[in-house]
């Protein structure tokens, strides 16, 4: 990195114009363009790398499910003659060996299903009646069921993540700014509790307190409830409070810990002393200089936490009887509905890989010191 490059990097970080840098302005721009191109190639390379990763994951999940002892025909009446039973197995696609069914599944997942999706969206006819991924249990396309269940999960999980992050950020900032104060100790203690109390206990405890003893909130999440006026909106709010809080506690614990650590790292840096020495107000120093730099690792933590909160939702949905994706997965597992389990698990894997990619790219966008060459 050239000396001017370092200077411009510092300028970009501190957002204070340094006199004498003007001749370097053009250079900085070219550098920015170079950086953009480098980032684009980096993103493309990462996308290409993630394809074999996803294929490998699909293969692992597929082979694991291949070992499954559960027979999808087990729930059929015993009076069905063996030859008809064999035909039914073949109709479910179970007659072929795995090296034929695995590519078929990949074809259905990556080509046929998107085609149906496009057909639905634009009224075209790409799919042309091709075989979709069919659930063993309901005999309907897996993606239709997932599309029915997704909104419930997204509402609860998404809302809880937003709430959790919104609570966590101020706690982390104040905790770090007033290190070792009563607030900091309380915040650290609460985040420790959030780490330690499993959702299946905090959820049950909330139900005991607020549903059983105080009778304020419903213990079961009613997904058929329709919001049309203020009163029904209030009911919707009431039934969302507990699941959202249970999931948000976990997010808050994690994010506020990272936020605090990251703020503490930055508060001790030289540039903070410089900013204070220049006579900047404390709020500008903390909320502009320190906060912006501290957010870099925290944003990646937030992005990386999204898949795990979907995993955690499996348990929370079970407690509050939300009929979302987690519950669908549990039911499918118990009924050995292999296509459904495979698809949901693989969708989660895609989410993990995607969020990893996004976190890495965000890191590069937010921190100009990171170079991709």
């Amino acid at each position, binding site marked *: 990195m050239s000396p001017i490059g370092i200077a411009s990097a510092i300028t970009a970080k501190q957002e204070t114009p340094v006199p004498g840098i003007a001749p370097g302005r053009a250079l900085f721009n070219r550098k920015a363009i170079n950086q953009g191109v480098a980032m684009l190639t980096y993103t493309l390379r990462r996308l290409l790398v993630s394809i074999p990763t996803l294929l490998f994951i699909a293969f692992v999940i597929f082979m694991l499910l291949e070992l*499954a002892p559960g027979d999808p025909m087990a729930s059929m009446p015993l009076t069905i003659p063996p030859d008809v039973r064999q035909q039914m197995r073949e109709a479910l696609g179970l007659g072929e060996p795995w090296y034929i069914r695995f590519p078929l599944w990949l074809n259905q997942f990556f080509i046929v299903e998107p085609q149906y999706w496009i057909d639905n969206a634009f009224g075209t006819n790409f799919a042309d009646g091709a075989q979709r991924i069919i659930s063993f249990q309901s005999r309907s396309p897996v993606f239709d069921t997932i599309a029915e269940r997704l909104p419930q999960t997204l509402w609860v999980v998404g809302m809880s993540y937003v709430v959790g992050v919104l609570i966590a950020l101020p706690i982390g900032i104040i905790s770090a700014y007033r290190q070792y104060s009563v607030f900091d100790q309380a915040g650290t203690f609460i985040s420790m*509790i959030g780490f330690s109390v499993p959702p*299946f*206990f905090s959820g049950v405890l909330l139900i005991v307190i607020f549903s059983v003893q105080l009778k304020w909130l419903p213990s079961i999440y009613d997904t058929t409830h329709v919001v049309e006026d203020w009163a029904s909106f209030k009911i919707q709010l009431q039934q969302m409070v507990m699941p959202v809080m249970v999931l948000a506690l976990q997010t808050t614990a994690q994010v506020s810990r990272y936020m605090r650590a990251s703020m503490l790292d930055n508060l001790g840096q030289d540039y903070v002393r410089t900013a204070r020495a220049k006579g900047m107000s404390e709020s500008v120093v903390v909320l502009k200089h320190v906060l912006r730099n501290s957010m870099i690792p925290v944003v990646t933590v937030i992005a990386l936490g999204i898949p795990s909160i979907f995993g955690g939702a*499996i348990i929370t949905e079970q407690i509050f009887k939300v009929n979302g994706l987690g519950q669908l997965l549990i039911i499918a597992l118990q009924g050995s509905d292999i296509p459904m389990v495979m698809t949901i698990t693989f969708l989660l894997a895609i989410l993990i890989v995607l969020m990893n990619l996004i976190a890495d790219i965000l890191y590069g966008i937010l921190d100009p010191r990171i170079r991709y060459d």
Partner: protein
Amino acid sequence: MTDRAPQASADNLLPSGDPVAPPKLKVDKPRNQWLDVWDQFKTHKGAVFGLVFLTFITLFVTVGPLIWDVDPGKLDIRNKDVRPIYMGLFDSSAKVSWGNPMGTDNLGRDIMANIMQGGRISLAVGWTAMVLALLLGTTIGVLAGYFRRLDGLLMRFTDLVLALPLLPLLLVMMLLFRDPLRAAFGPENGIFILIVTGIGITSWMQTARIVRGDVIALKEREFVLAARSIGTPARRMITRHLLPNVLSPIMVSATLGLATAIITESALSFLGLGFPSDFPTWGKILFDSVDRMTAFPERVIWPGLAISLTVLSVNYIGDGLRDALDPRIRGL
């Protein structure tokens, strides 16, 4: 400890005291560094609380059944649904009995005996799974860090495992291998092996990453160069020089591993995919009591509190250990 970081050995030789006082001419006998670690650990209040509670709960589940020798599986239908003893204070009509201080469940089984038995299994699963994960993680981390040829392959593998959706896969594994293992090792041992292996092979990745990073940094140090220059073979290099120096991150991730293992086991039991119901674990007792928590909230709260407090104390121990093992913080 053959070779520690220089600042640590300096700490050992000079007792940390008033920096203004003139240096003593007579150097004290070098203190064992673990005594220093213990001194620092003692200053962390949460960690001391954690250690005390973990010792208490361990004694409660190991020595407890010897003193409170009620069979946890014994059915006593006449004494069913006994409330815990403190309920007598609020409600004189509540059915309480000194014979069952924590109450009994709907089949008359003593809850205190069940919590002890369940804690034994939960803690045993936690410790074994943690040790397994540490062994895997340390082996892979050291191999990847020390042998450059293996690094790319092993770390790519670690990344792949990290990208797997672990909880769903764990659930799938529970369903798949439950019956074969049960047939091979008996109902309790089969499930124990299955859960421990499942948790172990899905939670070694963080340890591997940390150990690899530390080993790579250590390889650049002078003492490693010195050891190599006298022809130390790789095996002894790892066991004598590298492993003792990565002990602190391993210990910290051990506490994290123990906490997650206990929570994961309870979560599996809670989803109905853990131990069969004749073998109580904390998660299982909690799961079985959820249906009747309106009438008997204490049956949910006892096991839940046991899990939460154990995990909380383990996390605090980890925090204290991290501070105590970091020579930059020690002595402040």
